[in-house]
Structures are given as structure tokens and as C-alpha cells.
């Protein structure tokens, strides 16, 4: 079957979208487990919810890509604006005592980054079909961001010295 320019541009876009969403899902899942291990239940639950949303979006992208042959890229062969995919929270941005507000702000930044990524992809690609899909994804991310902003606004104010604690760290080994 001959591959058209549209197919090729779209396939590349969808490969990136799949990786973006699956990395987001994996990462939120891991962060939730790590928060579980450190007994920060509200943040763990929130990350789990974000993982579920990423999973939901992943299924949408997968459905779109279902009939296509996508390029098989290694983790480091994707083209991201930063070190990791836009919606993937850095492991290093966490602290076990982070508040729900901080967790949501982290997620909000990720949604904005994803929106920016999809929008820029839409502007950059010369393929109208791909641009349409990318813009649609960007709109969805924007919707998530707005929802997160509403949730953040509804939260009570959190303390300023969250990382302070009275006990010393443990010596496990």
C-alpha cells in the first residue's frame, strides 16, 4: 500500500501522541504508588486520577491510530521540546509532603505543556489533516487545564512550610 504524505505526517504525530499519553499514564501511576508508599493519600489519589485520564486519552489516540502503521521509535528517538514528553511530570519535581494544591499545579503545568506541544505541532506541520487532529488534542488539553484551575481555586489555602517536620529522617540500612 502506498504511503501518502498525509499518512506519514499523521503517523509521526500519532506516534508522538501515543508516547506522550502513555508516558503520562505510566508516570502518574508511578508517582501515585510512590506517594502511597509515603502515606500522602490525597496526592496519591489525585495522581491516580490523572493516570486514568491519560489512559482515557491514550485509548482515543490508539483508536485513531488503529488502522495505521506507526513508526517504531525508541524512547530517546522522539522529538520533544524538553527532556521528557510534555505531559510527563518529572520524577524530580516531587516531594513526599507536597500538598494537593502543589500536585495539581504540577499537573496543570503538564496540561499547559501538552496543549502548547499540540498547538505548535499543528502550526508546524504542513499537513492540514494532521493539524486538525493536533488542534483538537490541544483543545482537549486546554479543557483539562481549565478544569484543573477550577479545582485548584476550590482548594483551601495550604501552609507555607510544608517541608518542615519535627522528626529526623530514618536510617533504613
Amino acid at each position: 500500500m502506498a504511503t501518502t504524505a498525509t499518512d506519514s505526517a499523521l503517523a509521526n504525530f500519532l506516534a508522538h501522541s501515543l508516547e506522550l499519553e502513555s508516558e503520562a499514564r505510566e508516570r502518574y501511576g508511578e508517582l501515585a504508588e510512590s506517594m502511597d508508599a509515603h502515606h500522602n493519600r490525597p496526592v496519591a489519589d489525585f495522581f491516580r486520577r490523572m493516570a486514568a485520564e491519560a489512559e482515557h486519552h491514550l485509548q482515543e489516540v490508539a483508536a485513531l491510530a488503529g488502522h495505521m502503521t506507526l513508526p517504531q521509535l525508541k524512547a530517546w528517538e522522539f522529538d520533544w521540546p524538553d527532556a521528557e514528553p510534555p505531559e510527563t511530570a518529572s520524577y524530580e519535581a516531587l516531594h513526599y509532603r507536597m500538598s494537593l494544591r502543589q500536585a495539581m499545579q504540577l499537573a496543570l503545568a503538564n496540561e499547559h505543556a501538552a496543549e502548547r506541544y499540540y498547538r505548535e505541532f499543528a502550526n508546524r506541520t504542513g499537513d492540514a489533516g494532521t493539524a486538525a487532529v493536533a488542534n483538537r488534542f490541544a483543545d482537549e488539553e486546554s479543557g483539562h487545564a481549565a478544569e484543573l484551575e477550577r479545582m485548584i481555586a476550590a482548594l483551601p489555602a495550604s501552609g507555607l512550610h510544608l517541608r518542615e517536620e519535627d522528626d529526623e529522617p530514618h536510617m533504613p540500612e
Partner: protein
Amino acid sequence: MTDAIRLKAKDYKSEVKPIWCPGCGHFSVHNAITKAMAALGIDKDRTVLVSGIGCSSRLPAYVDSYGFHGVHGRGLAIAQGLKVARPDLTVLALGGDGDGFSIGGNHFIHACRRNVDITYIAMDNEVYGMTKGQASPTTPMDWDHSKLTPHGPGVRPFKPAALALASGAPWIARGYSGNPNQIAKLIAEAVEFPGFSFLHVMSQCITFCPEQTDWKAIVTESEAPPLADADEAAKQFLHEDGFQTGLLYREQRATWPPPGATAAEEGAPGKLAAAFRV
């Protein structure tokens, strides 16, 4: 690689969940190891992760392969013994800066020199995390956050890349925990490199060295091909700030032991005994 179902990175994670602090850089290395294994299509049953003791040395249990969690500082020795005895296996040794450069320092330099075909990933957070944050051999000399050395360790930190080069390591790279995909790429190259490959990962400790979150701003990524000239590399490794990442040095050197060294002689044990007969 076989036509078997292609495994994804998450398929290489074990069911044991890491107990590292949220924010710890070692999560990145764990992520990168599984990504590299997936990219290489590595056979889980023929891969062994060996470690010593420390936060980072917990890693083997988190990967779905064979593993050996040994005693403090000796992971490299266990890994080399295993690889020499079982050349068919893929062997990775893992550990931290205290484990690898202090208590295990002698094994590190000799592993560089011996050039057994294993990969060594040192996760360097410049601190002993499991014992409450004491200075390690890579801690800056004025770091005064430990009760053990309240005025800072007061001695110059090791430069692991320079140490590895001087000891004969043929493959030297550096990664940063903020960039797991780059670490994954380096691990994949390290595993495929025939010989001892040393991957030094700057891996932040959020608990004892929160100031290391600043590393993000100073880390650079090298696009240049690795150096092959030891003089040039020595100059770079002795004078750099230690935050340049990428594959920094590579040379081809014969591995030890020579391939095929263990072919048995026909009737050998009997002949050995017979030699003692008068």
C-alpha cells in the same frame, strides 16, 4: 532479537514498588534501565542486575530480571565473578557514590582496569542516604549539612570520570536524572559496548541535598562524538564542572577474559590426578 511479542518498558518493572523518596533521581535510572531493556529487546531470564548497599542498590528488586543485592561496596566484584563464570549473561552492576567510590573504590578502579564486559551504573547524589545524609567521596568540600562533618568534609571530591579514565575504563558516559531518556540511550549503548562501560549518573537527593534541584539549570548535553584520545579526555575530566552529559569517552580495548578461554581438555580431571603418581 526474536519475533516474540515486543516487551514495553513497563513489562521490565517487577511487582516490587520502589521505596525511594518521591523526588529522588533514582526513579529516573529505574525508568531508563527498563526503557533500555525494552529497546534492546533484552531477555529478562538472561539478565542480572547486581548491586551493593545504599538507596540506589535497592534497584535490582524493582526490575523483572535476575538480581543480586549484595553487601556494601562489593557489587562490582560479584558482577565480575558472575560475568566471567557466565559470559552468556548480560550483567549490570549498580550502586551509589559511597558504595562505588568509597567502600568499593578499590573494586571500581580494578574493574576499569580489568575490562570485563559488564555495565556499571553509579548513581551519584553526593551523599549517604540510608544512614542519614553523611558526606560521600563526591560531596563538595564545603557542604556543611551533615552532623558528622559540620564544617563540610573539607577534602576535595573525587572526579569519577577522571578516576575511571586513569584506571583504564574504555567507555565513560555521564547522565543526569532529569533526563531519563538520555540515560536510557546511554545504557543501551553501554550494554552493547564490548567491555567495561561506566555510566556516571548525577542523581539528585531531594531529602538530604535539596539544593541539587538546581542541577537542572547547569547540566549540559554533549552532542559531540565521544573523545578517543586519553590525553584530551584527561584534560577535560580533570577540569570540567562535572555537569556535561552524554557519551564522553570511548576506546576499543581487548576485554578480559579472552573469549573461549574455558574449553575443557579431554579427560582433564583424571590427567591432573595422574600427574601426582610417582
